[in-house]
């Protein structure tokens, strides 16, 4: 699969996790593609620059460069939207009122802590709302291709990239599998390719186990 195909495989799987009535913040990158797969679901998209209720992408006529999402892409207002300041928006995020944040990640450790804002040995000059979302959202879903460009696994025993917060994420969705983190333990919820859990373990170099399905 091309990188683009992979991303478009991950996005609808993320959409499957979203539930009617949820307030969801979609990060930049793969998470932003999720918007295209939630039609029919009553999900309310929050944008940290000050909007609850992102509508469908604008037509040529609707296009307004002032009305943008956190990735600075033009958007529209959904029916029932609300506009507010950045202070009010981050009060909403940090205060635990966003049900789900879907965040692109660079690394995740096997307990569920993520790195998604900076690269080692590079100037650290941008963070945006990443840390607020990690600290504040009720549920955090990580989204990423499982392997970096250099072939290394993004799931690691210890983060080597700068950490984004002390909070453990809930779910990691990759093109190979869906992982969940319960009580700081990583388990496999679902394998999305024709591969055994042992093969997947070998591929990422970390022993994996299935989530125990409780009654």
């Amino acid at each position, binding site marked *: 699969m091309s990188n683009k195909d992979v991303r478009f495989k991950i996005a609808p799987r993320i959409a499957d996790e979203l539930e009617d009535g949820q307030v969801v913040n979609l990060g930049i990158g793969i998470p932003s593609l999720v918007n295209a797969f939630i039609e029919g679901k009553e999900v309310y998209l929050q944008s940290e620059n000050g909007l609850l209720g992102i509508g469908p992408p604008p037509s040529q006529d609707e296009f307004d460069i002032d009305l*943008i999402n956190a990735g600075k892409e033009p958007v529209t207002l959904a029916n029932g939207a609300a506009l507010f300041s*950045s*202070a009010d*928006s*981050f*009060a909403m995020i940090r205060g635990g009122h966003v049900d789900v944040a879907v965040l692109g990640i660079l690394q995740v450790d096997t307990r569920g802590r993520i790195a998604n804002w900076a690269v080692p040995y590079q100037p650290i000059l941008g*963070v945006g709302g990443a*840390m607020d979302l990690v*600290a504040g959202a009720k549920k955090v879903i990580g989204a990423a291709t499982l392997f970096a460009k250099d072939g290394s696994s993004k799931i690691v025993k210890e983060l080597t990239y700068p950490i984004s917060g002390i909070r453990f994420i809930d779910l990691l969705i990759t093109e190979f599998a869906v992982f969940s983190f319960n009580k700081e333990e990583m388990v496999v919820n679902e394998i999305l390719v024709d591969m055994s859990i042992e093969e997947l373990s070998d591929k990422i170099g970390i022993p994996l186990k299935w989530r125990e399905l409780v009654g």
Partner: protein
Amino acid sequence: MKQKFVKDPSTLMPLFKDGQKILAGGFGISGTPLTIIDVIAASNVKNLKIVSNNLGDNGIGLHQLFIRGQIKKAIGSFFTMNREAVLAWTKGELQIDLLPQGTLAEAIRCGGAGIGGFYTKTAVGTELANGKEERVIDGERYIFEKAIKGDVAIIRAKKADQLGNLIYHTTARNFNPMMATAADVVIAEVDEIVEVGEIDPEHVVTPHVYVDYIIQTAYQKEGGQYVKQRCSI
């Protein structure tokens, strides 16, 4: 009634001085007071400390001040896209204070609200918490952040009445309402100035007490970008 509306923005030039801390509204280009920034550029003041989410883009907005070497320090949340700023920082020509976006917004709000500082859960345990006091409150970890205030705030709104009450346009609201509260002098750039009474008291976002000067923007949206319509300065 105090005349807050200034017809010729260039007359505001004496408000800007070397070394000032300026709060500048905007997220990307949305909600950025482009005309006021042109005034600052023309004023040639130097060594500015700019508090803003980012530093504009493509020679527009704050990027212009950066290119002209007027900025000594930038306090904001996202400079990664300002490649020359990153380079200048690497060379030691630009100081940068990086704050999470929500911490930045909250610190400015506190600056305007008589709050000296606050404890936030954002960034606990990260490199951005280095050197910051940590405190456990009701079993949760928080870090301390000081309030931010400025000498001048330059903000962008949709509409002002002659008193200075402001309303905003969609996501161009962003940092503008907090910045309006947190500086000694506040200049608002608007699309439209209306009579007192034309803005419903229930809809006012920034009450007039916060606004010192109002100018009409020299920019209009055309073909997906802001284009300067009048040579205001």
